């Protein structure tokens, strides 16, 4: 029986160099050359300034903008670093709510959000994604229903005709891939950029 230490050590070092350094660094170079925008995080610019990533949701609270889904991300409490406070769409620390189906906290949160949404657009059923947090807390999308639900509020806040805003939403709906994969959705940041553009005209 030969001593396994030498092959173990040499192979560990050599394969570490290949798979742990050579592979990721080579891929970084290659990806940056072929897909520079995607490799850097799909950043979106307006007037020469980065306003976010097209793939990462951001917090919208104003009535003038379409709002994304509730987000469960947190951040360290500035007054006490051992605790965390809610910090929606914190893209430096992704997190879901992890509340289970019989959680009283979840039931309470959804009840509150539902009441707020119902007062915003009475008589219309509230789309489920508008009152549930996403897995990542950074969901960039809402369902087409959830965007359409917000049209009256946004149109009123901007003094735009509802039909124009509704048309804008419709033009921004991404369908399923090849009609099969995934779910129809609207990217909230892209929609809001288009909305600002629409008002500027």
């Amino acid at each position: 029986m030969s001593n396994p230490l030498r092959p173990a050590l040499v192979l560990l070092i050599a394969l570490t160099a290949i798979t742990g350094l050579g592979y990721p660094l080579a891929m970084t170079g290659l990806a940056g050359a072929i897909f520079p925008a995607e490799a850097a995080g799909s950043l979106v610019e307006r007037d020469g300034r980065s306003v976010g990533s097209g793939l990462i949701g951001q917090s919208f609270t104003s009535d003038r903008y379409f709002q994304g889904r509730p987000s469960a991300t947190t951040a360290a409490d500035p007054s006490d670093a051992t605790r965390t406070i809610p910090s929606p769409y914190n893209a430096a620390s992704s997190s879901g709510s992890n509340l289970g189906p019989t959680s009283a906290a979840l039931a309470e949160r959804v009840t509150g959000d539902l009441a707020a949404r119902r007062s915003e657009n009475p008589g219309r059923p509230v789309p489920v994604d508008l009152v549930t947090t996403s897995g990542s807390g950074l969901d960039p999308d809402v369902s087409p229903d959830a965007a359409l639900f917000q049209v009256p509020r946004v149109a009123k806040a901007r003094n735009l005709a509802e039909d124009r805003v509704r048309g804008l939403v419709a033009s921004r709906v991404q369908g399923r891939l090849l009609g099969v994969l995934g779910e129809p959705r609207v990217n909230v940041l892209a929609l809001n950029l288009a909305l600002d553009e629409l008002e500027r005209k």
Partner: protein
Amino acid sequence: MTINGWIQIALFCAVVLALARPLGGYMTRVFTGERTFLSPVLAPVERGLYRAAGIDADQEQHWLTYALAMLAFHALGFLSLYALLRVQAALPFNPDGQSAVAPDLAFNTAASFVTNTNWQSYGGETTLSYLAQMLGLTHQNFLSAATGIALAVALVRGFSRASATTVGSFWVDLTRTVLYVLLPLCILYTLFLVSQGVPQTLGGAVEVTTLEGARQTIAVGPVASQVAIKMLGTNGGGFFNVNAAHPFENPTALSNFIQIVSIFAIGAAMTNVFGRMVGDERQGWAILAAMGVLFLAGVSVVYWAESAGSPVLNSFGLTGGNMEGKEVRFGIVASALFAAVTTAASCGAVNAMHDSFTALGGMIPMINMQLGEIIVGGVGAGLYGILVFVVVTIFVAGLMVGRTPEYLGKKIEGREVKMAMLAILCLPLMMLGFTALATVVAAGLAGPANAGPHGFSEILYAFTSAAANNGSAFGGLSANTTFYNATLGLGMLFGRFFVIVPALAMAGSLAAKTTVPASAGTFPTHGGLFVGLLVGVILIVGGLTFFPALALGPIVEHLAGGLGQTFAAGG
């Protein structure tokens, strides 16, 4: 449930099945040492590695030597990863200034990656430097996956050889798996992922000003190269805390579909490798069929449960299923499919938060893992896991008809059955034993975020996931504590090596046996009767053990939720 949903599931199954044969053929060539189309490039690299390491590629090993080589390799890998995590602050590629990882977390993370579990007590973007992610995690993803495949191949050699004293060379199997199988696939895969929007950069986090004028810090990094291997190698450890739910790990419906396929691709192809190496591809298909039956049953329940949604939320007038913890771009079906696949295989990547699944939707992932992850399973691990069950099935069938059981011409005797049962019994011991411990000590009870039966489910899920080397979690559990880091770390190490070593011992004793020719009384192991028996044995031997524990968690929660009962934490 919608027609479109079932079409997505059917399409997934079709693609995995279509890949099994070509990939299996290629991998068989790799493991039997034949030339492949990549040999002109890779053979010189391979020879250079052997020369430097003093390995004679033609010298095969006895099962015990094979096992010792594997253990030595892992011991060194474990120590070096632990050291790297402890000193990452002083090393380069740390643009966001991550500090040294605490000892208990470093132990847990090292155990997690060396055992192909990739349990995430660490927070990814908030804990680890880019160097730790690349040099530590990415590289262990390759090596632990390659080890699983190597061990499965060694066990297959046990069945395919007669009167042999050796089961192959660990060094050669390991090296060839990394060079010929994992690395080429990962290179293509990484480029595909970047094309979909997965970042691959060494720059630090990006600062932007949102449309409403707030500051947003967006974590990026060398993500794509790690995501590629974590999926293909059924490792599952995310670059980010929320894993494949993060838009940067899994940006589109297409990236999601390919990721689910890639979890199963190698594992499913391994059944074909098995068939080819024992000289009868039908044997491989029979095993894949048993896996397929169990998989379809599981995915159907998850899809149904998540589509139906939570009775508590539905009572508020919500429709559209359970979207808490799920991303809009994946919706119900792609999240349910991902959950069933990632726990059937030992991947553990998640694209939705399992903790927020409905009671029954979250129970199926637990069952998938408790059965030993033999439904396709981890790369390699799934094959040796199900072969262990095959041995028990053959034994039971032999008892029923009163004949000495045979499988592929090998007599299955006391030693093989003992080794098989040892491997099978290790999992419930770790899963249920540690769960029981955690529910009686204060340090364990401090963990769950949810109250009532769901809190118990969080603990059960954690130890199930650790011992099965899955790595997914009911993420509400505060697992980054000394108690959980230590117990989960031990669960992972035992769950890995106390299955591997008996499986290798079985390989050695099988290889030494002569092959007896099939006779009229030989039980055929490529037909429907065998598939049915195998499924039955898996459910009875593997499943019944866990029924009482499941009754305390998800089943009771399902009944309580149906009555509209909720549980307040801290109450």
